[in-house]
């Protein structure tokens, strides 16, 4: 019944307590939401090791080396002057291909996808080449493979210097 005497906004008081209050409140609520967002990214995942040291480049012969295949799912390939780490997951449906040294190709037993020694697909249903993992030399000159970072040929990422080591 007392509509006439409404509270009016006085321009002089624009930065009055109300505005300050609301901005602080908004900042605090936004902060809480930001913290919630941050919370959804765990600080550590309960998963097996995603990186490893793989010895010296001189430890590897030309061609495909399978010594890390069982432990980490990685082929170390030395081919035409570069050393790179191929993922052993077929890009068709995720089986593990076999390396056939006689025919110099990776052949997936599930549906017959075939890849050259470079990892490029050329037969069967595989739609794209095998992925490369980050591979760098550490301060002792040893190879360090990091499976959390992948490089895809079809995106042109195989030119990225972290996806191969020049030998």
């Amino acid at each position, binding site marked *: *019944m007392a509509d006439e005497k409404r509270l009016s906004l006085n321009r002089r008081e624009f930065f009055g307590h109300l505005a*300050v*209050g609301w901005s602080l409140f908004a900042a605090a609520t936004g902060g809480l939401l930001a913290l919630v967002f941050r919370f959804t990214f765990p*600080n*550590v995942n309960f998963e097996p090791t995603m990186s490893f040291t793989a010895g010296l480049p001189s430890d590897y012969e030309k061609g495909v080396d399978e010594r890390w295949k069982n432990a980490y799912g990685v082929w170390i390939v030395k081919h035409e002057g570069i050393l790179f780490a191929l993922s052993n997951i077929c890009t068709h449906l995720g089986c593990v291909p076999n390396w056939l040294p006689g025919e110099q190709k990776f052949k997936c037993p599930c549906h017959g996808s075939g890849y050259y020694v470079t990892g490029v697909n*050329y037969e069967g249903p595989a739609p794209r080449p095998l992925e490369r993992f980050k591979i760098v030399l550490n301060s002792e000159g040893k190879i360090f493979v990091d499976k959390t970072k992948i490089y895809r040929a079809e995106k042109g990422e195989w030119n990225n210097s972290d996806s191969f080591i020049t030998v």
Partner: protein
Amino acid sequence: MKLEPGMAYNTKVLNKVFAFLSAIFLISVFWMLLDDYIRPWKVYQVEATKIKQERLAKVIEETEQSLDASEIKALEDEILVAEQESQKHNETIKKIEEEMHKLEGVIHAWSIKKGEANAQVSALTFKAEMSMEHKEHNADKLMQQLKDWKVKFASASDTLKKYELEQKEKKKSIVELNSKVIDLRKELDDKVGKLELLKDAKAAISFDGVSVLRNAPLLDYLDPTLRIEQVVMKNYYDDRYFQQTARVDRCTTCHQMIAKPGFEDRENPYKTHPNLELMVGENSKHPVKEFGCTNCHGGEGHRVHDFQSIAHTPQNSKQAAEWREKYNWHEPHKVPAPMFRLQHTEAACLKCHQGVERIPMADKLNEGRHLLEENGCYSCHKIEGWEHLKKPGPSLYRLAGKVDKEFFKNWVWNPKQFNPKTKMPSFFNQSNNSTPEFKAKNIAEVNALTDFIYSLSEEYTPNEKFTVGNAETGKELVSKIGCLGCHQIDGLDENYNVAQNKRGPYLKGLGSKVSAHWMKSWLKNPTHYDPTTIMPSFRLTDSEASDITAFLMDSKQERFQNLKFAPLDGDIRDELLVESFAAFDTLAHAREKVEAMSQVERTLELGRITLGKYGCYSCHSIKGFEDSPQIGPELTNIGSKPIEQFGWGHQHLAHERDVWIRAHLENPRRWDEGTTKPFKDLSKMPYFDLTKNEIESMVLALLGQVSDYVPLEGMKRLSADEKLAEKGSRVVREKNCFGCHKIDGEGGEILANYQDDLNAGPPFLVQQGTRTKARWLYDFLDNVVPIRSFVEIRMPSFHLTNEERNLVVSYFQHKAEEISFDDERELYTWNPGERQAAIKLFKNLECATCHSHGITSDTPMGPDLRLAGNRLKATWIKRWIGNPISILPHTTMPSFWDGGESPEPEILGGDSEKQMWALTKYVLEMTKNPSVAAELRK
């Protein structure tokens, strides 16, 4: 204050309140952000990074200094020149690059065509084959389509290959044009490459703007440099009560350099792990990525928050005080398995290295287990895996024929009074049973026990009669023939008192203990008294036995001999019996029962009860009590026993497992202090009078007895050789071979008496399996003949069963991973001229000086070569001849082929190998045909 109508409050005031509340709201949210973001472990990582930076800077400096700056400059100048030269190829290169670009488009187009063909082939393969299988009408059409597409695919593949080859060629040509630059660059890189890598590594861990952003609050979800490091193990689990979860250790978050060599002089957590080749290092036996940290150290490895949450345990109260100050540390609460104290870490070896008596390189643990064995803990307390060990105390089957009752009573009352070095612990005169009342009861118990045990004992008459003997000669014999391999003996000269062998009892005062006849009979044939004894026979002649008996019997314990044990008080005995019977009956009935028994029956009954009470049969074989269960609680899993289940009595001790075990070993009766226990409820574990160091080792060994589940993949699995060697080692340890022989570096305590001349002592057995022939060793163990007549110490004759002999032989064979039999057929035929060469060598090298048997009449200083061919393996003989010092560093056998050079360059063309084999062959012939030695007489 007038309010506007419809308003309960003044809006201005409300707004002020709102602003204030929002402000503190924001502050609290910000505080939450900080509390979540600021973690103690990040501080340690920052410090660790700084240390790593420091070190890298140092290494970079050193590397830079090692480089020749002028050389580098020269190379760089060359590169500049080459680059300028290659400029003139720019035009060509540009053109080629343009062509390549065009080619890329073509290749891309053909890739698509090929991909399409590939897809069609795959799809049609399925369709066509399926329609063939189901015999559909369009099968042929589909097959034809498939054929067509296959052709298209083949042609597309081929064309694509053509263009790709072209591209390759073009690339190659560019490279060729730039080849000089590329080569020079490579040369430079070879020189400075390492430096570049080091600089990159240093940059990667620098605290620049990028790293600040990466680690900023809220933004650090992407890819922080300060992050939690972990090792997830697939072979080791955390036991979450019927659920095994893979163990994860996050210790390396703070202990960043634990696996990196070079930080050994730092303080933890920035320290390199000691002994990196055995533990933690990448190429060690226990790499951290496979084994983690908590497997050995315990603690809450999956927690990271701060120093406290991991349940670090200080080594002692001094370190605890340090930690309280430095880290605000307090005792961990509600942690099922806190870390081992650093000095107890070896206890953790036991849970994976099971089934072996000694674990390589775990010296403290081995020492502790040895002490548990020596003191016979395993015989009263069951420990799984120790069941094969003999009872530590002598058999009491025929006690009546060895000592008299008076001796026995005084002995049981206080063993150390007679033998200060005895292993038998003390049951009486302890802190909980020394009141006059308890003492009187104990006296009654001892009297009754004696009568009871003697009633069970068989009759025994010694096999020999002692008349006279020369104690001086006896002393000589005892010092030299090898008694000291198991015993320490009172009254010997100082130099024969150094070795600390304790397998047999300390021999002192035997004149007050046994009769001379018994002694002589025992010495000549120990099994006559006790068929299960491990004491061997030294093949003593009658006069030797008499002399030794005379010496030993000369040692007396007058005071002990004159002790008169208090007699049995019948009333106390009856009281104890009534108390025992009244456990399941009324007092009246119990008294009746006792009344109905005769005096002798009562004494024997009390003796039987006492025997059951103290559990003597756990350590001694007693007739009728062979199968009685061990009297003490099981210790198999004492390392995992919940803290709540330990009883602390009224002792004020920290409630920790190792504290309890230590306190218990220091005085097992302490838990009765301050209690009001009746006589029958007093603690019974006897007192062992151990030194502080012994107790520490035993505590460590017992802490290792845990119930942690380790899957087979995680355990140390013995190879087939190791398993058989381990089986055999049980016999070898039981008979105390290690008391005399140093077998592959272990044992040989008696050699402490032969420091002046190790060759006078028992031989070292180094890789024995490669040395003696298995068949010979097997026969030798049953039929000992002297091999080295120039030493006084004797190999005793052990009365081994057939199985035991086999096990001993297989122990040596499998320890050395040696196939049993060499093929020596070739070595029995001579090559032309070889035999003469051998004889010449033998004479020139003057082998007969020491190995004189059958050749000269000189006193031999080396073993009889006429026995060597049967005894030793030919391969070993050859190895020995070639380099004896590498096998036995203290041997007097000369090394004729020192450094591979032959001492006789004329014989067999100076070929060392041929010479050694020639001599070996000759030794073999000497064995086969001993008369051959005659031709060496000249």
